[in-house]
C-alpha cells in the first residue's frame, strides 16, 4: 500500500506523457486527477500508518514507512502539486504540455519515495531519480540554447553532492551490515561521522547551500511551474527534509550540528544579500530559497528538526505562489527583469494575491512563516545568542528582499490597460495564498501546541524578550531598505551569487574540461602512439621498438621463443587465410614485431612458471 504512494504518480505520469493527446483542458484535468489520487493515497497512508518492505537483493531489503512528521510532508507534496499542475496547465506552452505534466507527476513519485524511505537505498533511488527528472524538467524547453546546458549543470552539481549519500550508504553498510535507517543509530566512530557528513553534503547540494547554491540560478532556465515545485515542496526542500529526517541518528556526531548551523546561517546571510542585489524576478526568489533553506539547516543543526519541517511547510505554502506571481508577471511584461515590471495596475488581482506570500517571506507577523522563523531564532538562541543574532540578521535581509521584490513587481506603475489573467492560474495562486493566510493561526498557543502534538515534535521554550525586539527591528529596517532599493533601481548586470558562479565556471568546470581534452590527447599520442599512418612516438610504439631490438639482438631469447613462433604465426596465417591479403597495411610489421615480443615474454613466463 505505502509503496503505491511512490509508484502511482510515476505510472500515471508515464501514462499521461506517453498516451495522452488532447487539449490543454483535458491534459490538465487528467494531471489533476492523477495528483488528486496521490493526495488521497497520502492521506490514507498517513492515517493507517502502513509500512512495507521488499527483498531487493540478497543482502539488501528496502523498507518504507512514515512517522507523524514525515506524513505531514507526504501530504504536503501532492497538495502543492495540485496547484502546480493547475498553474502549469494554463501557464506553460501547449507544445510538450503532456510531457511536462507527466514529468511533474513522476517527480512527485520520486519525492514521495524519498519521504517514505526507511533505508538508505530506497532513499538514494528516490533522491537520484528526482535529480534525473529535474534534469528533464529544467531542460523542458530544449529548443532554447540555454535549457539543456543549465539542466546538465543542475544535475551534475546535485550529483556531486549525491556522492556524499553514496558514501553514507557505504559507511552504514560497512559499519552495521545493513542499510536501514535503524542501523545508523548503531554506528560509531569514523563510519558514523562519514554517514553524518555524507548526508549533510548530499542535502546541502539539493538545498542549494554553500558552494552548491549556483545551480538554483541555472535551474531558473526551466519553466516557472517547475521552479515553483522544485523550490517549495520537492528537490530543494528535500535537502532540508533529509537532514531533519536523519538528525536524530546524527545528533551526537561531533561537529555535525555546528557544521549544519554554520552552513545554514552563512548561506542564509549570503543568499539574502544575493537576492537583494538581483534584478531577475525568479533569481530573487531562487536566492531567497537558499536563504530560507539555510534557516532550516540551522534549526536542524541546533537540534530542532521538527522546526525545520514546520518552516519547510510554511515556506512551501508561500514560495510556490510567489513563483506563480512571477510567472504571470512575465506573461504580461515579457521579461523577468524587475526594473521593467511595476504591474500593480496591469495585474491587480495577481498583485493582491501575492501580498500575503510576500509578507510571509518577509517574516512579517501574523503570517505563519514569521512564526516558524521566530521559533528557529529562539531555538538558535538557546544554543548561543550570536547564532540567534545571525538568524535575526538573515530575517532582516528576507524582509528587505521580499519588500523589494513585491514593490518592484506589483507597485502600481504607469496607468496601463488592465489585463485579466486566466482564472485557473489565479486559482492556483489564490489557493496557496489563502493557505498562507490560514497558517497565521499557528501564532495562537492552541494550534501550535496541537500541531506539535500531532507531528510529535518538540518546540523550544520562549527565549528572552530582546530576541523579539531584535526581530521586529530587523523587520522594520529590512522593509525600509527594501523600499529604498525598490525606489532606486540600479542599471547594469550583477554577477550571479557574488561571483561564486563565475568562480565555479572558471575555477572548476573549465579546467576540468581542459584536462579531459588533454587526457584524450595523451591517450592518443602517448599511451597508444601508434597512430594511424604516423611512425608513432608513444609508449606502445616505444614498446614495439624495444621489442624489435630485443628480438633481433637477444639471440638466446629468440631461440627460446622459436618454438612458439611457428605456432603463433601459423595460427595467424591459418585463421586469416586468403582474407588476410585485404588487410595488408604499411604498419603490419609493427604488429608482427609486437606479436613476437609477446611470445618472447610468454616464453620467459613459461620457463619460470611451469617448472
Amino acid at each position, binding site marked *: 500500500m505505502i509503496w503505491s504512494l511512490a509508484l502511482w504518480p510515476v505510472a500515471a505520469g508515464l501514462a499521461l506523457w506517453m498516451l495522452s493527446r488532447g487539449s490543454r483542458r483535458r491534459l490538465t484535468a487528467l494531471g489533476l486527477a492523477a495528483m488528486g489520487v496521490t493526495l488521497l493515497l497520502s492521506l490514507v497512508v498517513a492515517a493507517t500508518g502502513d509500512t512495507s518492505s521488499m527483498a531487493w537483493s540478497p543482502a539488501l531489503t528496502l523498507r518504507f514507512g512514515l512517522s507523524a512528521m514525515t506524513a505531514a510532508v507526504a501530504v504536503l507534496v501532492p497538495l502543492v502539486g495540485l496547484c502546480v499542475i493547475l498553474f502549469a496547465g494554463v501557464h506553460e506552452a501547449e507544445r510538450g504540455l503532456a510531457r511536462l505534466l507527466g514529468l511533474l507527476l513522476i517527480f512527485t513519485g520520486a519525492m514521495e519515495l524519498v519521504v517514505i524511505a526507511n533505508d538508505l537505498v530506497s532513499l538514494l533511488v528516490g533522491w*537520484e531519480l528526482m535529480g534525473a527528472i529535474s534534469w528533464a524538467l529544467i531542460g523542458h524547453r*530544449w529548443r532554447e540554447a540555454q535549457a539543456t546546458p543549465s*539542466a546538465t549543470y543542475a544535475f551534475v552539481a546535485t550529483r556531486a553532492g549525491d*556522492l556524499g549519500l553514496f558514501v553514507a550508504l557505504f559507511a552504514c553498510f560497512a559499519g552495521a551490515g545493513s542499510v536501514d535507517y535503524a542501523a545508523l543509530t548503531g554506528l560509531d566512530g569514523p563510519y558514523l561521522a562519514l554517514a553524518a557528513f555524507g548526508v549533510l553534503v548530499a542535502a546541502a547540494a539539493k538545498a542549494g547551500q554553500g558552494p552548491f547554491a549556483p545551480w538554483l540560478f541555472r535551474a531558473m532556465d526551466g519553466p516557472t511551474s517547475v521552479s515553483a515545485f522544485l523550490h517549495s515542496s520537492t528537490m530543494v526542500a528535500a535537502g532540508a527534509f533529509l537532514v531533519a529526517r536523519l538528525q536524530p541518528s546524527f545528533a551526537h556526531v561531533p561537529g555535525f550540528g555546528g557544521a549544519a548551523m554554520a552552513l545554514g546561517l552563512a548561506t542564509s546571510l549570503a543568499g539574502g544579500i544575493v537576492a537583494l542585489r538581483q534584478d531577475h524576478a525568479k533569481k530573487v526568489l531562487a536566492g531567497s530559497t537558499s536563504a530560507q533553506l539555510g534557516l532550516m539547516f540551522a534549526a536542524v543543526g541546533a537540534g530542532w528538526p521538527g522546526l525545520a519541517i514546520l518552516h519547510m511547510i510554511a515556506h512551501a505554502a508561500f514560495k510556490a505562489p510567489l513563483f506563480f506571481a512571477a510567472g504571470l508577471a512575465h506573461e504580461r511584461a515579457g521579461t523577468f527583469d524587475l526594473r521593467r515590471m511595476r504591474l500593480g495596475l496591469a495585474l491587480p488581482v495577481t498583485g493582491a494575491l501575492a501580498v500575503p506570500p510576500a509578507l510571509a517571506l518577509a517574516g512579517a507577523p501574523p503570517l505563519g512563516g514569521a512564526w516558524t522563523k521566530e521559533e528557529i531564532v529562539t531555538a538558535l538562541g538557546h544554543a548561543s545568542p550570536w547564532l540567534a543574532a545571525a538568524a535575526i540578521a538573515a530575517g532582516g535581509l528576507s524582509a528587505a528582499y521580499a519588500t523589494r521584490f513585491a514593490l518592484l513587481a506589483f507597485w502600481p506603475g504607469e496607468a496601463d490597460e488592465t489585463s485579466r489573467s486566466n482564472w485557473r492560474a489565479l486559482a492556483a495562486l489564490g489557493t496557496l495564498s489563502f493557505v498562507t493566510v490560514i497558517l497565521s493561526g499557528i501564532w495562537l498557543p492552541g494550534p501550535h501546541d496541537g500541531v506539535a502534538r500531532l507531528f510529535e515534535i518538540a518546540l523550544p521554550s520562549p527565549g528572552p524578550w530582546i530576541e523579539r525586539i531584535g526581530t521586529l527591528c530587523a523587520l522594520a529596517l529590512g522593509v525600509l531598505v527594501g523600499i529604498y532599493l525598490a525606489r532606486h533601481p540600479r542599471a547594469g548586470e550583477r554577477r550571479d551569487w557574488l561571483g561564486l558562479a563565475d568562480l565555479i565556471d572558471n575555477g572548476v568546470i573549465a579546467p576540468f574540461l581542459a584536462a579531459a581534452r588533454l587526457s*584524450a590527447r595523451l591517450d592518443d599520442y602517448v599511451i597508444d602512439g601508434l597512430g*594511424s599512418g604516423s611512425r608513432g612516438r608513444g609508449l606502445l610504439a616505444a614498446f614495439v621498438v624495444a621489442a624489435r631490438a630485443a628480438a633481433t639482438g637477444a639471440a638466446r631469447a629468440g631461440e627460446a621463443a622459436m618454438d612458439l613462433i611457428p605456432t603463433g604465426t601459423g595460427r595467424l596465417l591459418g585463421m586469416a587465410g586468403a582474407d588476410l591479403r585485404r588487410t595488408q597495411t604499411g604498419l603490419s610489421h609493427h604488429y608482427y614485431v609486437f606479436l613476437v615480443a609477446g611470445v618472447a615474454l*610468454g616464453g620467459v613466463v613459461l620457463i619460470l*612458471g611451469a617448472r
Partner: protein
Amino acid sequence: MLTLCILVPLLGALALAAIPSIRESTARTIAIAVTAVPLLLLLVVWAGFAPGAGFQSVAEARWIPSLGIAWRVGVDGMSLSLSLLTGVVFLAAVAWPMADLPRARAYYAWFAFLYAVSLGLFVTLDLILFYVFFDLSLVGMYFLIGRWGHGEAQAAALKFFVYTLAGSLLILIGIIALALSMPEITFDMRAIIAAAPLAAAGLPAALVLLGLFVGFGIKTPLFPVHTWLPPAHVNAPGPVSAILAGVLLKMGTYGLVRLALQMMPQTFVDWALPLGVVAVISILWGAIVALGQDDLKRRIAYTSVNHMGYAVLGIAVAGSAMGTQAARDIALTGAVVEMIAHGLITGALFLIAGAIWQRHQDYDMAAYGGLAGVAPRLTGATTLAAFASLGLPGLAGFVAELHIFLGAFAVYPWLAAIGLLGILITAALFLQLLGRVFFGALPAARTGFADLTRIELGILAGLLGLVVLIGVWPIWLLEMIGTAPVAVAGG
C-alpha cells in the same frame, strides 16, 4: 543441451557460408533463427537451474585423454547469466536491420560463427577449449570489423587482433602452467578450481597470475592496454560494436574470475590491491578521456573502459583477503551484474550509434543537435540508455555499481572513494552528449533525419526493458548469479 547451444549456430554459420544461393533476407532469417534457438535452450537450462549448487547441465565427451583434454560443458550462476546475456545481445545485433549490406550471407555467417564461439567460451569447462574459443572469437570479430567496417577498418581490425592475440598467448601459457602443475595433467576447470595447484608456488605463481592479468586485462580492456578499443569501435558497424562491447569485453572479466580468481586464489590475494588500483585508474581515465572526445562513438567506447573498470574493481575486492566474506561476495556479485548491465546498456548505445551512422555517416557530435524534434523515439531510447550508463538508480547500472562499491568500501575504502568520482564524470559526459546531439537547435543539414523504425525501436525496447527490469527488481538476477564463485576464493 549446452553442446547444442554451440552446435546450432555453428551449423548455421556453415550452411550460410556453404550455400551460395541463399538470399539476403533468407540469410538474416536463418541467422535470427540460429541465434534464437540457443537462447531458448539456455532459458530451459535456467528453468532447471539450482542457484549456488556449482556447475550444472554438465556434459562430457572424451577427446584427448592422455593430455586430460575433453569436451566439457556446464554452467554456474556466473556463466549462465553471461550466456543468457550473450544470447540476448547477439539476437539484438543480428536482428538489427542493415541497409545496403554488402556480402550479406558472409556477414550473417560470421555473426553465427562468433555467436557459437562466444557461447562456447562461457559454457566450456575445459581450459583448452576455453583458449580455442577465446582465439576463435578474435577471428570472427576481426573479419566483421575488417570487412564490414568503415573508415580505417582494416587497420583497426588488425590492431585489435594482434593486440588481443598477444594477450591470449600469455593466457595460453598460464593455462599450460596450471595444467602441468596438477598432480595428473588435466585441463578440467572443475578439478583445477578444486585443487588450486599453484597455491604454494611463490614467484612462478605470481608470474603466471600476472600473465593472466595482462592477457585478460587487454581484452577487458584495462588502462593502459586499452587503446585498441576506440579505433575498433569507431570503425566497426553498429551491431558489431554492440557485440564487441556487449559480449567480447566480458570474456576478459570472466577469465579474470574463472582463471585468475578461482584457480589461483592464494596468489590473487597478494595482487588484489594492485589490480584494484589499476581498476580505479581505468575508471577515472576512461571517464575523463571519454569526456574529452568530440566523436560520439569514441566517447561511448571510452565509457567501456570506465565501466569495465568497475567490474575489475569488484573482482579485485572479491579476491582480497580483507574485509568480511559478505563484503567480498557482494563485490563479486556486483562485478557480474556490471558485466550484464554493461552488455545490455552499451550494446544498446552502440546500436544507437549505428543507427545514427546509417542515417548520416558522421560521428562528430558538433554536426548534430536538436534531433529530439525530428527523432523523438531515438532521443527517448538514447536518454534512457545514457542515464542507465551513468548509473541512475532504478536502472541496471546502478544495481551493479552499488554492489561493487558496497563491497569495495568495506575492503578498500580509499579506492572506493576515489573510484566513486567516476560516476560523477560519467554523468557529466553523458548529459553533455545528450545536449549536443539531441537538444538545442537543429542544423539545416539534419532536418531530414529519420526516426527509428519500428524494428529498431523494438530491439532497443527489448534491451532497455531488461535494463529497467534489472534496475527495479534485481533479485532474480542476483539470486541466479549467486555467491558460489567466491566460496572457493576466500583467502
